[in-house]
Each structure stands twice: as structure tokens, then as C-alpha cells.
């Protein structure tokens, strides 16, 4: 994988996450697609397996830096880890599934985005809920959080149908494999 192109794409995805996401928000509730997760799934689907988890950890850590957590004292703080671990789990799931899917089908990216995003969201929520038991993390009720995160994952999958072709255009520069050989169909190929 070309790490310079990865850095540029990550920068753009983080900019979209920060700047453009509110335009796609559903009403006033926290349901909006995640552009960073779409990039993460695209990379997990196409890039050499050895580069996927480090890339997922980096993108997840960036999301941790971006998404602050409100506390009961009124301040919002950065918690490093939830998104990094959630992203890594999402990428790991895609690595295991990618040998079984038609990667060029636009719907593949959509379905995998939903799966990876929901897995990541569950990990993030579990960590934050656990922390809330001994720390001053302020969360909405678990059912509300889970519903919003499920719908966010679904929305991310839908938006990835539009973003997927654009990422495909950038694929030659990021270093994706042009062809999937018979010898490399295993999940860790």
C-alpha cells in the first residue's frame, strides 16, 4: 500500500467526517454516515492483508481524536482507543469475509460497510458503557445509543454506494491489487 496516498485519502475522509457529515445528518439526531469507515472498509477489501490492521488502527485513532466524549462535568474529552479497536475489529471482519464476496460489485462495499460499521459501533459503545460505570462519561440511554449507531451503520452502507466508485478511481494510486489470483483468495492473502 502506498502510505502517502493513504495519508492524503485519510485527511480528505476526516475532513468530510468533520465538515460535511452534518449536511447528511437525519434531523437533529446523531445519525449520519461515516466517511472514514467507508475508506477503512475499502482498504480492508483491497489492500494487502499485512497493511490492513495497522491502517485500521491509524484511522480509528484519528476518529478517536476527532470524536470527543461529553462528560458529566460539562467538558468534552478525548478517549483514545474505542474507535481504534472498533475499526480494527471491523477491518478484521472484512479480511475474513473478502475472499467470499465479489469485490467489484458496488453492493458488496455497501453490505460490508454496514457490517464493519456496526461492529465498530458496538465495540465503541461497549467500551464507553463500561467506562461510564467508573468514569464521568455522559451517554444517552443504551437503547437510544444502540439504535442510533445501528442506523448510522446502515446509512454508512447506503452512502458507500455513491463513494465506492470514487474510491475505485483512486485505487491505482493507493496500491490495490488489480487482480485476485487463485493463490491469494485466503483471508490473509
Amino acid at each position: 500500500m502506498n502510505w502517502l496516498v493513504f495519508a492524503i485519502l485519510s485527511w480528505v475522509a476526516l475532513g468530510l467526517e468533520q465538515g460535511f457529515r452534518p449536511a447528511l445528518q437525519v434531523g437533529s439526531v446523531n445519525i449520519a454516515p461515516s466517511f472514514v469507515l467507508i475508506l477503512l472498509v475499502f482498504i480492508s477489501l483491497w489492500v494487502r492483508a499485512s497493511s490492513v490492521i495497522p491502517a485500521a488502527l491509524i484511522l480509528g485513532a484519528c476518529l478517536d481524536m476527532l470524536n470527543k466524549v461529553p462528560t458529566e462535568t460539562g467538558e468534552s474529552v478525548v478517549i483514545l482507543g474505542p474507535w481504534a479497536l472498533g475499526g480494527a475489529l471491523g477491518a478484521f471482519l472484512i479480511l475474513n469475509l473478502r475472499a467470499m464476496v465479489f469485490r467489484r460489485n458496488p453492493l458488496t462495499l455497501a453490505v460490508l460497510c454496514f457490517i464493519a460499521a456496526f461492529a465498530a459501533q458496538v465495540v465503541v459503545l461497549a467500551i464507553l458503557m463500561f467506562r461510564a460505570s467508573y468514569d464521568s462519561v455522559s451517554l444517552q440511554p443504551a437503547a437510544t445509543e444502540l439504535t442510533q449507531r445501528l442506523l448510522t451503520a446502515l446509512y454508512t452502507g447506503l452512502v458507500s454506494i455513491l463513494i465506492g466508485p470514487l474510491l475505485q478511481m483512486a485505487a491505482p494510486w493507493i496500491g490495490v491489487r488489480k487482480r485476485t489470483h487463485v493463490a491469494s483468495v485466503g483471508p490473509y492473502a
Partner: protein
Amino acid sequence: MARRTLSPRAMMWIACVALIGAALIPMRFTWWLSWLHGPFQTVIAPISAPLAKVASWLRPGEGNRAGADDPAVEELRRQVEFYRSEYLLAEQRMEQMARVIEALQDGVPFAQGARLRRVEGTRIGSDLSAGTIEINRGRTHGVTLNTVAVAVAAPQHLVGIVTNIGPMTSSVHVLTDSRIIPSLIEALIVREGVTTPGEIARSPRCQFRPVGDGTLAGTLGIDEAARVQSGDAAFLDDPYWPGSAQRLVMGRVVRIEDTDKPLFRRVVIRPDLDLARVRAVVLRISADDDGARTGDSAGNPGGQP
């Protein structure tokens, strides 16, 4: 002698274990991580700020306010709102001055209120998960924690309060987010045309709580609820909020609903703006506001502008 190096797989496992530790360590050990948020925002800002502008253009936060009338009517409405809010603030200050005079007569030393400084900031993004908007003004511009933000399009309309500051950026927790602290916000519901101090004093007071759908709701007794009608403005009047936020508009009554308890009604207010999508805000920086939405021990508001 051969030098031993860690394999990439081992390094990845070490990173995962370190992240699990960082994710679970109590906040008192990881508070310093919030310092990194500001520089990180500064790196993202060159791309997120133009995209936020595009997003504001596609879905403006001021949409439900502007465009309803022609510009002249809108300007007049803004002026009416300004003078109304200033008048209510002046009334509140007169009450406080009377208390100060009483305190001075008792020998309490006089403390001069801090001046209010206004700094305009542009929204460079939003953090939907935290219910905040990111502003391109930070510590270097004099922004402090608990600085109050109002909308540029409606200078008397409260947007939120600063909860995180970086060197060049800061985060404003919007009023309508259900996790804002304190979650109960007291407001004075003033009917259109009410001007005399007596009428203002008798106006219903209600403690509103953000619902999470862009509105705030509170309960009133049926007698007080009978004096409220759709369109009435709610002005913040809460000693636990900074002085620079007092008597700013929180929103307007959109409906009054029955509750399970027959003696109470639920009053729902909605801000005039979509607070999470405002293009720009004015930060009302006051030295007295640094430190808290706590008020003093007597329950008096923080510093007045």
C-alpha cells in the same frame, strides 16, 4: 551480535494492548490526550472548513429563520429581538444592583464586573457524537472554557457553550444536545408585548431539558401554562449559567401538551436556528465566566457583562 527486532505482528499486538489500556484507563490519567485534539483539528481544518461551508450552503442552519420574510422585515425582527433581550437583561441587572447595594451596606467589598469581549468564529465542522460544533477560534484568541456562543445571524440567540479549547480551535456544546451540563436550564417565558417590570417578574419560569430531537421541553403547572402560547420566546434566566448568557433567547414555544399528571402541562420550545449547522457564531468572552456554570453560594448568577 545479531540485533533483535520486533516482528510487525508483535508490534500490532502491543499496539492493540496499549489501546485497550488507553481505552479503559480512568480519565484522570488520560486528561492530557485532550490537548492533542486542538492540534489535530488544526491539521484537519484546511479541508473541513471548506467542506463545512459547502454543507452550510446545502443545508443552512439559519434556514428556518431567514427566508420566511423579506430582508427588511428580518432586520426589523432582529432589532426587536435585540432590544427586547437587552431590556430584559437591564431589568435583571437592576435587580442585582439592588442586591449589590444591600451587600455594600453590609460591608461586603465591591467587585467590578468584567467587560464582555465579542469574537466572531466560523464553524469548521461538527462532532455529532459529542453534540458539539467546532469553531476556528481558540486559546490564542482568548477563548476560555464556558464562553457563551450566540449566532451571527441572530446575535441574541444562544447557540451553546465552549466545553473544549485548543490553541486555534474550540468546541461549542450546542444547547439542544441532551448531554449538555447542566441539563436543566431555567428560562423565563415572555409573551409578545410584555414590557413592564411587574409583568416580566410575573412571567412563567420553566426548567427546560434538551429532548435530543432539536427541542427542549419542561413542565409547568396548568395555571402558568395557561399564560403561555405558541410563539412566546423563552429567555435564559439561570444562575448556573454564565452572566454573558443571561436573558439570551433559547427558542420559542412550539406546542403545549398534556401530561400524565392532570395538573401539569409540557411546554416544548424550539430554537429559531438549527444550532448544529449555524455558519458562524459570536463568542461572548467574559473573564468572570472562566471556571464555571455554578453561580455563587447564594445562587446568584455569575459575572454580568
